[in-house]
């Protein structure tokens, strides 16, 4: 096993183990802390696969913004945290467990049986992603970039309007 494979296995185990901890934790707050570990593991996978810029973006946005936002929301809804003995799952959870296990099995078999059209050996890998991505956003991908800007603005205004005190 090479060093890269070893790092991959460690990052994957952290990601999946924390994900299981997240969905099984009794308290939503503890689940949110597990979720931060999942995001960190995914960032490690991004950096390992060669997308270092995306790994940094993942840490900034998911851990720095979304996880903190979710922790805030949990703190602001205190009645949920006040009752630790309330059941955490709804009635359909055994059925959901069977279905999602089946989904994971089907996806794994499909991934292993498919012949992926891999790139040629020795294809040059782009380096300096921040520069290349910035150029891309200003040229080829300017329409998705603008649409994403408008979406963020609308979401920001919408969130303020919905959450505002009457």
């Amino acid at each position: 096993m090479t060093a890269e494979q070893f790092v991959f296995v460690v990052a994957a185990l952290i990601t999946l183990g924390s994900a299981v901890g997240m969905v099984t934790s009794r308290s939503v707050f503890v689940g949110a802390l597990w979720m931060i570990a999942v995001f960190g593991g995914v960032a490690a996978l991004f950096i390992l696969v060669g997308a270092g810029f995306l790994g940094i973006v993942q840490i900034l946005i998911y851990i720095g913004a979304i996880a903190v936002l979710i922790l805030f929301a949990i703190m602001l809804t205190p009645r949920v945290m006040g009752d630790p003995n309330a059941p955490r799952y709804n009635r359909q959870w055994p059925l959901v467990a069977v279905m999602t296990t089946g989904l994971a099995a089907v996806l794994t078999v499909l991934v292993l049986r498919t012949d992926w059209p891999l790139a040629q050996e020795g294809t040059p890998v782009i380096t300096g992603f921040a520069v290349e991505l910035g150029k891309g956003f200003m040229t080829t991908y300017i329409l998705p970039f603008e649409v994403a800007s408008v979406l963020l603005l609308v979401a920001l205004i919408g969130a303020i309007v919905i959450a505002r005190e009457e």
Partner: protein
Amino acid sequence: MPSVPLSWYLIVAALLFSIGAYGALSRRNAIGILMGIELMLNAVNINLVAFWRYVEVEGLAGQMFAIIAITVAAAEAAVALALILAIYRTRDTVNVEEIDLLKW
């Protein structure tokens, strides 16, 4: 080519997606459901980046798509948490089994 096969990444993403789907469908707390959805979005991003590295390595589309997906996830989290706070203020609960105003 890196020494880690493409299928390893895809399997990890598939497992992460399934775990996220389980969390989103089985939790009673609305915030727990939102966390499950974030996990599923992350799994999709792993797939996009892995396909970029192993299949379309000379282009930028895979990483661009992942960045747009992260943007949408951030917008979705902000709006969803605002909705959850608004519901908590009026109904005093975030248990989705008690939020049945539209059920008849």
